[in-house]
């Protein structure tokens, strides 16, 4: 392996924490979705790294599935955002509290 496993894990952790921070701090729905994407990608990175490390193909297949799901998720998520924006003329998460849950 060209890149050492430690570096890969550190990068993935950094990405994950950055994504998490984005999700926690931002109030904009789109930014939150972006944060979620970053976190998912960091997980994908770890999966690919692990696949290369153990010379097994499962991780790469997993990442392919992950990408497909992410694409679907983003599509639905953005559609929801558009819908919500039509409802309230805003995409601030603080406004969407009617369901109390």
């Amino acid at each position, binding site marked *: 392996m060209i890149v050492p496993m430690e570096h890969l894990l550190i990068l993935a952790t950094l990405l994950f924490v950055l994504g998490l921070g984005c999700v*926690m701090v931002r109030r904009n729905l789109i930014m939150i979705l972006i944060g979620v994407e970053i976190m998912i990608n960091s997980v994908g990175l770890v999966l690919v790294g692990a696949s290369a490390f153990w010379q097994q193909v499962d991780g790469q297949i997993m990442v392919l599935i992950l990408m497909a799901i992410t694409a679907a998720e983003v599509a639905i998520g953005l559609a929801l955002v558009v819908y919500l924006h039509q409802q309230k003329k805003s995409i601030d998460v603080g406004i969407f*509290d009617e369901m109390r849950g």
Partner: protein
Amino acid sequence: MDILLTLILLLPLAGGVINACFGKRLPRPVPVFIACGAVIGSFLAAVGSFSLAAGDGYRLVLFTWLKSGNFQADVGLLFDPLAAIMTLMVTGVASLIHLYAVGYMEDDSDQVRFFALLNLFVFAMLTIVLADNLLLLFLGWEGVGFCSYGLIGFWYRKSENAAAGRKAFIVTRIGDLFFAVALLWLFALFGTISIEGINAQVAGLDMTTITLLSLLLLVGACGKSAQLPLMSWLPDAMAGPTPVSALIHAATMVTAGVYLLCRMFPLISLSPTAMAAIALVGIATALYAATCALAQNEIKRVLAYSTMSQVGYMFLAVGLGSVSAAMFHLITHAFFKALLFMAAGCVINLAGHENDIRRMGGMRRRSPLVFWLFIAGILCLAGAPLTSGFFSKDLILATAFAHGDLFHQGLYGLGVVTALLTSFYCFRLAYLVFGGDYRGDELPHEPNGLMLWPLWPLALLGLGGGLLNLPHLFGGDSWLSGWLGREQDILHLTITSEYLLIGTALAVFALGWLLAALRYRRYVHRPGSVTAEFLLNGWRADELFDLLLVRPFKKIGRFCSQGVEIGLIEGVLSGTVRGCNDLGTRLRGLGAGKVNLYLHGLVWGFVVIVGWFLLRALI
């Protein structure tokens, strides 16, 4: 005969219950007839069954009231000589008072309630008198307390009347508590509450127990009989209608304490300490009340204090060990005190419903009849020679004298001083009420016939009551002492000392009259001096009790209500409530649908959990 004996008790009860339940629905004169008929019937039954009581008496168990383990309380009657003579007196005097009350309460709209309570009062007193066990006696004892409360505060719309009723109830309740303790203790000691049973077994007890028991009984008797220090309710009890005063003072209530001590005499006579205490309480009250009576301005209050003083004499007699002297004085006192109260009621009517003797005077001219009846009572109370009061009071004083030692000589001396004061305040009252010219401006309300003629038998009994226990010196045979089986109470003094005692009594009576005549023959308005004020307020006893008992009690009450109740308990409760509320509000904030908040919770919770596991792994 059993039926007659039962009827004595049952008739007043039936009369009271019928009047209480249905009296309002009956046409006007019927409840009055029921009430009077019940008491008069009871009196006739008492006369009819009187012969039963001779010797050791007659015991009749009606039914068992309570039974639990070895505890048994019967509703049983003990009709012995003591009870018989008392029953006769109570029912007889109460009958006359009932008749008088018919005239007195003629216009009162609450007549029915009055007569129902009056009948129950007589019933409760008869229960005390006839009970063969202490629990039944205690039932009557409490019944008397309740009825006195209802009757003293009869005109309850005036708040001071209601307060007087409450005071009588509460003060006597203090005594009742001690009596109840004695009762329970006696049961614990003997396993029986029968009066005869207890009296038969007392000889085996040790001295301290007997003394303590006797003192407990003494305090109980003090409460009902208005003796020091539980006397303050009696003068205020004058707030009730006059027939009630007459009933309380003559036939029922105040004599109950003396009767209790006579009933338990075999017990208390074993303890010289207790006997001395009883004598001391008696003489102290007699003296105290006599001094108070000197300065009173209301006719009924003078009589109230005189009752207290005379009951003090009865206690003295019990303390001297002479049951027959106590009972003799009790009975003669019942006659003339009932007479005096009822005559006082007539006088108050004559003076236009005026109580204050300073605004009376000249009543002799308004009604010579009332004058002579009242004077008959006054003479008995003051101890004029050959009246009943003279013989009975003299017997007590002579008994004290006959004991011979210094303590009893002192009691005798104080008794003579009290007799002097008694004579003085009696004639002060007579002069102020009847002498001189009328000082008020009210028109007389003529007392009606029913208010006058019950006084005649009482006047005759009062004047001639001495025949009941006429000493040998006057040619009698001390019938009452013999009837009670207390021949040891008959005194055997030398002729010289007999004449000496009679001379003293005479001199004291005459001196009191003379002093009163000198001072009050002509009415002079006297501004109240400090002493008079002091005596008028009963030595400021009420203020003392107020300071020592009532105010601290109220303070404790306020502390309990404001400090403990409102401050502590409600504070804790409302604090808990507020805490729960706040917690709820905060928790609700968590569930407000804020996505950020949930995310923060999720992440930080996760961080904490991971941190915890890391920490575990590292250490």
